[in-house]
């Protein structure tokens, strides 16, 4: 961390209206962060605290706003797709607590914040109090989120498909749409046209597939977001089983396609039939998730 200094608890960053601003967490385990719109100005205040009776000599105070993609497999390989700097103070000595306002006006934030298995995309502001070599820089970062609402798709067909194993199992399934917003309900049906195997149960899984990097360096990772049992027991021919799944209940992101040429996140519905010998018969279908504008 040479050259970057260490995170200092003597610097505090606060965003404008932080108390009333929408906050969200990307996952259940992560902390809640303020959310900024795609072109929203990022403003706020920085406070550098100087303990009583001390002074801080510095070579300048600056604040950066960074949009960054980070690959976990390749530590330290950061790709900053946005990087803006504002000088807050020229070199000098601080004798007491000093406050600075910052303002990144109408800054463009083209991507959503994302926290995946091999990659993450984040936005943050970083305050650096540059000092001489011996004292080391004082640094403080404050992360924020950007979530990009998308308009509803113009075309949104249903997914309908007939699949089967000859003389063994023949089903037809249907999901009402191909594109779902994040609080959407997946409604579907499974028709059993032929059942010659002893089915034990049927489930619908949501699978997230993350592709990070490119070429030989590409890392693909699949993750089951949820397994949702939709049928218990063996149906007979002609049976039609309803599916209803509330996406709300799960931690999903919109589908990301080739973000800054660095990564993609895709979602699939996987319909799985398990027979009494624990054999699994499945069919995956990609669906597109998008973030709808808040109602």
């Amino acid at each position, binding site marked *: 961390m040479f050259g970057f200094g260490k995170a200092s608890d003597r610097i505090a960053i606060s965003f404008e209206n932080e108390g009333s601003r929408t906050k969200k967490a990307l996952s259940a385990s992560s902390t809640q962060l303020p959310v900024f719109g795609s072109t929203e100005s990022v403003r706020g205040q920085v406070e550098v605290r100087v303990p009583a009776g001390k002074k801080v000599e510095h070579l300048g105070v600056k604040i950066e706003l960074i949009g960054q993609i980070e690959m976990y497999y390749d530590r330290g390989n950061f790709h900053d797709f946005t990087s803006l700097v504002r000088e807050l103070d020229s070199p000098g000595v601080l004798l007491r607590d000093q406050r600075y306002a910052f303002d990144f006006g109408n800054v463009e934030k083209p991507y959503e914040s994302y926290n995946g298995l091999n990659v993450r995309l984040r936005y943050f502001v970083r305050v650096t109090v540059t000092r001489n070599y011996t004292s080391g820089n004082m640094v403080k970062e404050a992360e924020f989120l950007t979530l990009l609402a998308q308009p509803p798709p113009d075309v949104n067909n249903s997914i309908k498909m007939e699949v089967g194993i000859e003389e063994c199992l023949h089903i037809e399934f249907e999901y009402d749409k191909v594109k779902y917003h994040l609080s959407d309900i997946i409604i579907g049906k499974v028709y059993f046209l032929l059942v010659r195997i002893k089915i034990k149960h049927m489930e619908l899984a949501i699978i997230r597939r993350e592709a990070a990097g490119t070429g030989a360096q590409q890392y693909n990772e699949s993750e089951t977001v949820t*397994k949702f049992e939709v*049928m*218990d027991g063996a*149906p*007979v021919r002609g*049976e*039609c*089983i*309803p599916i209803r799944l509330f996406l*709300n209940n799960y931690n999903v992101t919109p589908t990301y396609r080739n973000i800054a040429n660095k990564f993609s996140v895709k979602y699939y519905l996987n319909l799985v039939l398990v027979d009494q010998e624990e054999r699994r018969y499945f069919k995956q279908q990609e669906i597109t998730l998008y973030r709808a504008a808040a109602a």
Partner: protein
Amino acid sequence: MAAPGSSDLDNQEAYLKEATRKVKEQGFFMKRCMDSSDLKGALNHASDMLRELRTGVLTPRNYYELHMKTLDELHHLDDFFGQLCKDGTKTASELYEQVQACGDVLPRLYLLITVGATYIETRQAPAKDILNDLVEMAKGVQHPMRGLFLRNYLSHACRDKLPDTGSKFEGQGGDVSHAVDFVLRNFSETNRLWVRMQNQGPSKERKRREKERQDLRILVGTNLVRLSQLEGVDVERYVQAVLPKLLEQVVNCKDSIAQPYLLDCIIQVFPDEFHLATLDSFLETCTQLRDKVNVRVILEAMMKRLAAGARDAQSSSSGEAVARTPPKAFAAFNSCVTKLLEEKKGAIELAELLRLQAALLEFALECYPGRLDYVNHCFGTCAAVLRQDPPRTEPLDDTEAEQLERVLALPLAPSGGLGGVLELTLFGELVEYLPWRRRRDVSLGVVRAVLGAGEPLDSVESVEKLFSMIGPLLRDGPDDATGGQQQKSSATSDAVPDEATEQLLVARLSHLFQHDDTDALFRIFGAARRHFGQGGIDRVRYTLVPLVFRALALARAVRAVETKIAEQQAEEQAEENKKPAEEPPPPTEKEPAEKTTDGEEEEAPEEEEEEAPAAAEAPAATTEERTTIKPPQYSSRKVFQFVHEIVTAMAGSFPSLSLNLFLQCAQEADKCGFKAIAYEFVSQAFIIYEDELPDSKAQLRALHSMVGSLLLSRGFDDSDYDALATKTTQYAAKLLKKPDQCRMVATCSLLFWSDDPSRVRDGRRVLECLQRSLKIADACMTSSSPPIHLFVEILDHYVAHFEKKNPMITPKYIQGLVALINEHIDNMDRVDGRADLEAHYRNTLARIKAKEIIPLP
């Protein structure tokens, strides 16, 4: 989750115990979360609790146990959800969505149903929509047993949430059609699951599976109960929207367990008027069932149900005849039965066919009392089924015979209300198919029915018809004959009382013979005698006796007619006044003397030339008819001859009875003015007395009757009377026991002193009797117990004759007897009856004193 294996069966108790423990535990946690308003926690624990119901190990009964325990816990959520909605913490729709996050379908659906009920209750959404959603989503459970229980919970949880007519959920929430739709859909799915159980698992476990299905059937039937409870389901809706769906399900499920069960449920849960309105389609369905299904049971249940309804209606309307069952119901059942016969002739066993007819018959009798044509129709169907070409050689087996017997017996039951048992054509043909013993039982039913109806039998034809129906009671059958004598004697002890009861019933039939015309009645008697006569001596002793008495009454009636004619002729003659009398008053037809049946001793009462016209007290039944009375073809003599033959035939086997009957005949003949006939009858009685009477008690009884009869007689010539009286007194003197002799001889004294001064009054003979009696009493004398009671009784006779002013009986005899008695009475030992004797003597003395016969202190 497969069907429980054999090891699972062994461990049922342990599984159940463990699962129950977990349910209790999770239920406890769930309630704790509820107490701290932790919805999420409560739902999690509820899900965990409900996961126990995912087991595939338990048998239906044990699963039921676990299910009930789980629901006990689950009910706590009802209030909790209700409260959350009420205080606004959550909207019902939020809850509805939230519970659907549960990853396992079974717990999810239980929770969904629980919230759904709350949701409907809040009326934040139309009941019909939620019901629709619930019943649809429940399809997620396709495991038959788990599905059955889940849907049962659905049905239960929503039972009071339906938008039924009059319910608070009606209107916005939908109407009764939605309620019906919900229940019907749930029923249909439930039934499909139930039927599916049949085809799961190895075929060798079929038996066990069928048993398990029977255990679970109530879960299906409950839905039908629900339907029947809907206020809004009226006849019209039932006809239009409910029954067609049910029947469709019944037919389409093609399951031989479900079909009879469901149809039976339909029969039981819906009211009669619904059934009557839909009988045709219901019956149509009955012809479309699997071959394995016993349609008879279903039809029988429906008929029983309707019949019971008709019966109730009748009794509640207090006798007022209500034709509640529409006339076409019989036709509908009948055409259904006919169709089954045609379509499944080979597949249905004969016994079942007969049972079916029995059921139809029972229905007809119950609903259409008195409809003989229906009964005959059923008989016809039975006959058609039984007739075969070539004719059957095998007798009916026991079950078949039992059913046929039932068919025949049903119209005979008192409740059958059928007067015209004799109008049952084909009865004779059908009864022929039965083994003798059963024919006998049926015959007995016929007799009871005929007696119960009390309708007169007024022609030879009807008597012949009746007797052709009850042959087994009138004679021995092939069964009875086999085994011969020794079997009979060994069986006597227990068989005889039974037979006696039967014959006592048969005997009553004679009292139903009626006809105003004496000739016609006599012909009926003749026919009856012919039939009864075949019965052998053990039957005749019961059956022919009533005929004797009927014939005696008939003789009296004929005699009255004859007298009337004689009077008429006398009048005419008096009017004509010129011609001398030509003919004796009573008709004197010469008839060929018939041989008596046993032919041993033919004696028709001889013709007498100068019988006086019958006593004037003969009833004037045919009075005041101006027209000339037709002379009876059968004279009263002929009738007496008839009874003579009958009694003569029995004399050898039943002497006491025959003797009594002869005396009865004699009394009647005497009354009719036939002294010779009367004499003949008395003579016959005397012959029996001498030759046949078994013991002294019978003799004593006979003598009493003989004395009484003689005293009653009016017509005998003096010499005849004297001969008979003398004979009787001789018999009395020869009785075995001295006291009997003594008493009887004293009694015979009465024979010689008539109250009627114009008749026998032979004081000497009276005295002879009394003195002889006294002598016999003397012979009984022992020192320890003098026969004082006999003395006192003889004294009574002396007193009586004294009072009758018999000059031979003077006070000195009485004086002497009193002295004799007084002499001994104080010495008498204290024996039983002494007080009675003293009382008797005191009474006699009081009488003597009152009549001042002799001076007494």
